[in-house]
């Protein structure tokens, strides 16, 4: 019954497992650099061509790309397990912007200060440079950049004679007017699920009201301006009624789909959505405009910074070869190629003035200004701990479980405890 079938299976297992480890390369001085990064959405041949170009220019180095799931959590899990085990199975890795300080402090990243002499720093946007600097030294090179922005239905705004809002109150007013006159339309959708994206959203209200989480290592969460910002987020749902209550389940993709099906006036999201809105068959093709996020009166707009950086494993067996790869991938040439092929937004400012790129991605001109004023989330090794606290407190406010002042008081105490442990 099971056994004859089993014998065959066992044989197959043995054969295939034996075949699993490929025969070792013929003896040659090639150094193999393993590069771990998340899946590129699109045709991978463009990236392969770039890598071949690198290998041609650096004989003796072979690059092996290994993909990880795009979920930031899954990658963090992977790195936590591997770094704890002091693995040297990979050399170059793509690091999320919020991990750099944490990885640096844990001793997982190689010091890369020498790769970016101070003269070169200004070639990059200042936000990412701040995020990759820990105790005065650079631990990762910014690879590509992301920041929150406001999408709006320019056809609807035009129809009702509005220009894009500059303050949050203006946004509410426009949204209510248009929603009142149209049917089947939400005013403003954003990301309110209890996850990291919520913090990206919340900080944009907090910062644009002059508040912050940390100020020079002091916790400044419990402030009147922060309370106002959080209460405004809750009001969007309950009193202004421009945001539906299911915002507490929304992530980037679900909110993008609501707006992309023509069912919302405003959307806060990352730049990636633009290409999807302009695709064939999209219901909002040529109807979407992009603008800086609004701010509260008397303050400036601030977007939350996202993006990925390239770091090198402290335990890498081939650090010099890895450094060469990192330098190559963050060079203007590579960033240009990746931007054209995959829509990555370069971290080098000069590329935003190149005509070829601007023609291929007309949004780039506006994005430059948005990226200039984008701010990184608190750059501290304890960021994820802080984020966990903020996620639960802010989610409780938006879901109506806690009032904003209680949430901020609680958050203040908890974050102070976290920072106290660290010293």
């Amino acid at each position, binding site marked *: 019954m099971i056994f004859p079938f089993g014998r065959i299976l066992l044989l197959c297992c043995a054969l295939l497992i034996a075949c699993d480890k490929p025969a070792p390369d013929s003896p040659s001085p090639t150094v193999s650099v393993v590069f771990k990064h998340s899946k590129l959405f699109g045709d991978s041949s463009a990236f392969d061509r770039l890598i071949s170009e690198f290998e041609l220019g650096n004989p003796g180095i072979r690059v092996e790309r290994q993909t990880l799931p795009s979920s930031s*959590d899954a990658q*963090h*899990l992977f790195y*936590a*397990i591997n770094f*704890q085990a002091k693995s040297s199975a990979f050399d170059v890795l793509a690091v999320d912007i919020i991990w750099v300080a*944490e990885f640096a*402090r*844990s*001793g997982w990243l190689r010091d890369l200060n020498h790769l970016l002499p101070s003269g070169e720093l200004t070639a990059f946007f200042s936000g990412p440079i701040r995020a990759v600097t820990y105790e005065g030294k650079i631990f990762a090179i910014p690879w590509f950049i992301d920041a929150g922005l406001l999408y709006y239905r320019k056809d609807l705004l035009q129809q009702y004679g509005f220009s894009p809002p500059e303050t949050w109150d203006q946004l509410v007013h426009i949204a209510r007017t248009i929603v009142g006159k149209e049917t089947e339309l939400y005013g403003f959708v954003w990301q*309110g*699920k*209890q*996850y990291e994206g919520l913090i990206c959203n919340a900080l944009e209200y907090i910062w644009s009201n002059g508040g912050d989480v940390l100020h020079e290592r002091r916790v400044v969460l419990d402030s009147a301006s922060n309370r106002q910002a959080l209460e405004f987020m809750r009001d969007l749902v309950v009193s202004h009624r421009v945001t*539906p*209550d*299911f*915002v*507490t*389940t929304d992530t980037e993709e*679900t909110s993008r*789909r*609501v707006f992309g*099906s023509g*069912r919302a006036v405003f959307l806060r999201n990352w730049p990636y959505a633009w290409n999807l809105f302009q695709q064939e068959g999209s219901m909002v093709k040529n109807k979407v405009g992009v603008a800086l996020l609004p701010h509260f009166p008397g303050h400036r707009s601030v977007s939350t910074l996202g993006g990925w950086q390239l770091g090198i494993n402290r335990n890498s067996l081939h650090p010099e070869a890895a450094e060469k790869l990192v330098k190559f991938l963050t060079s203007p040439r590579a960033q240009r190629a990746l931007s054209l092929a995959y829509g990555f937004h370069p971290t080098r400012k000069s590329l935003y003035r190149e005509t070829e790129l601007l023609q291929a991605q007309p949004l780039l001109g506006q994005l430059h200004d948005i990226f200039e004023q984008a701010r990184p989330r608190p750059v501290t*090794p*304890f960021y*994820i*701990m802080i984020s*966990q606290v903020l*996620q*639960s407190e802010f*989610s*409780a406010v*938006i*879901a*109506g*479980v*806690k009032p904003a002042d209680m949430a901020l008081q609680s958050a203040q105490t908890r974050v102070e405890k976290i920072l106290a*442990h*660290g010293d």
Partner: protein
Amino acid sequence: MATDRRNREERATLFLAPAGITLSAVMLFPAVYILWLSLERRSLIFGTPQFIGFDNYLRLAHDPQFWNALVNTVYFTVVSVQGELVLGLLMALLLRRPFRGRGLLYAIILIPWAIPTVVSARMWEWLYNADFGVLNYLFQARINWLGNPVWALHAAIAMDVWKSTPFVALLLLAGLQSIPRELYHAAAVDGASRWTMFRRITWPALLPLILVVLIFRTIDAFRVFDSIYVLTGGGPGSSTETVSIYAYKLLFQTLEFGYGSAVAVAILMSVALATVVYAWLLRRVSP
């Protein structure tokens, strides 16, 4: 006689050896590792590890987030396991007698268990979506299934019941087939009603298997992580955060390996306690 008994025990050892070797070779190190870590203050961000004895457990006792997670988990486990058991038993009873196409139906009822969790959790996230989800479309309503602090946990429970009922049904169906037909024939001859046959024959015969199913489903439900994490991330307002999600956040997001291991040990203890209670309860109830 003594040699005979010794021989029998030695033979038993031979039969048990492969299991013993496999389990200890693989699990001994992790078990010791986790227990040891739970006694340490080990967080790479905070500096070098220190042995701190039971301090982690003291911290656990006063940690409101842990207790919130524990309450959520216990509620989730109790409700979903009960649901699965009842529905699974009904399904098994329904499929007991042969009929045309039973093989196909058998495969169909297995679908929820067969779909990978990474897929079914996302699938339910879409079904529950308040804006374009099928559920709200069918009910013609705008219920905020996953975004409402009260509804969210129940939505997760419903998903788990849907997913795990086939596990119960599969095992109970196999168990039903092991009951000899003659018992039912004899009872029918004696004029017993179907309910009496169930109560006197089916139920007692199934009880040991039900205990096994109950224990394993409880262990799994208590440790639930993947499905809820994808569905709600523990929110909104931490209303669906289970102990495993909390342990995950500690171990792999905030990298507090020592305290996270203590939470893991607490999960282990809780599950062991639940199992002991079950075994005791069912011993009382069975004839």
